């Protein structure tokens, strides 16, 4: 009787071990960022968000973010023959974001164009399955400040320093355009013959000439930076006389 009981207990234990082993085989694997397939999906996700931010910052409809993400989701879920994938996304509504978008173009020389979206990717392949949640923030920002000095009775030289950032790291500007507002005319005048020096570290120094301005007039300037990835940021500030 004792032998039979022992055998039953042993069989129960063994079957439990087998059951747990099989369950573990089928459970999704939480993979690290090093997984090439997941890294590639993240990379394409970033590109999708950059495209949407470039579009919106150039005056496009804010709905393009959801539209583009749905197109990406559809392509990912329908056209990969080596895995069944499901991608869900949630555009952040945490302040300062609204529907995943934060555009803050200010008059204090510091401006931001940004998108923030949270993703959940569930992928099942023949050899592996995984589930990953990740958040992607794409942010282009600039900081501008400037001064001017009289060079003669009718001209002043304006010098504007612009620092360009992508995700808070120094970044390249694709195009910098400057405007100024002379003597409270409330009309922005494009700066001409602008000389721009690229320091190679995200810092650009632009200089141009303007006509006569009143003594100690706080010269308003407006800077438009389209960074190397095509995202536009505007900022206004005032230049003080040196």
């Amino acid at each position, binding site marked *: 009787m004792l032998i039979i009981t022992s055998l039953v207990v042993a069989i129960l234990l063994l079957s439990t071990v087998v059951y747990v082993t099989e369950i573990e085989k089928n459970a999704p694997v939480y993979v690290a960022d090093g997984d090439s397939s997941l890294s590639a999906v993240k990379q394409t996700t970033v590109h*999708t968000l950059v*495209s949407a931010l470039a579009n919106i910052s150039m005056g496009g409809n804010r709905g393009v973010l959801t539209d583009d993400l749905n197109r990406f989701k559809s*392509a990912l879920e329908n*056209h990969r023959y080596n895995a069944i994938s499901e991608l869900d996304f949630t555009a952040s509504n945490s302040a300062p974001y609204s529907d995943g978008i934060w555009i803050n173009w200010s008059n204090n020389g510091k401006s931001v164009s940004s998108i923030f979206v949270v993703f959940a990717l569930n992928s099942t392949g023949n050899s592996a399955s995984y589930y990953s949640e990740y958040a992607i923030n794409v942010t282009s920002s600039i900081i501008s400040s400037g001064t001017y000095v009289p060079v003669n009775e009718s001209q002043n030289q304006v010098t504007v320093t612009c620092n360009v950032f992508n995700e808070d790291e120094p970044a390249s500007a694709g195009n910098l355009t400057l405007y100024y507002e002379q003597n409270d005319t409330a009309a922005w005048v494009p700066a001409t013959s602008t000389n721009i020096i690229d320091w190679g570290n995200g810092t650009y120094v632009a200089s141009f000439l303007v006509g006569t301005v009143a003594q100690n007039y706080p010269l308003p300037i407006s800077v438009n930076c389209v960074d190397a990835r095509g995202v536009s940021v505007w900022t206004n500030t005032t230049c003080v006389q040196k």
Partner: protein
Amino acid sequence: MIPAVQKTNSDSNNVFSSIAFNALASLDNNGHLAEIIDQRNWSALQSSLETVFSPGLWFNLTVYDENMTPLNTAPICSGSPISNHIEAADYLCASMNANYAVYTIRLQLSGLN
């Protein structure tokens, strides 16, 4: 004719499909791959692949749009397969510019084991 065996990158230990996938992911860093496709610059795409792969590897690449319609009008390949063992990788890439597009790229790779 007996068709060549084609495996996908879902199979484990597929060296060529892994190489193909990683090469595409590398080329797509900073959006370079999608930029070339946006421009429909197939010769530049062929040159990029020739730079990445050694002459001992055969490749054949097809770019599909969102409806899985092939986009490249000319073949993007390096001659004829040098082996009956062909592996393939699918890669999804998206353009970074304001005019969004998403492409599926299928890259077949073959070489002597």
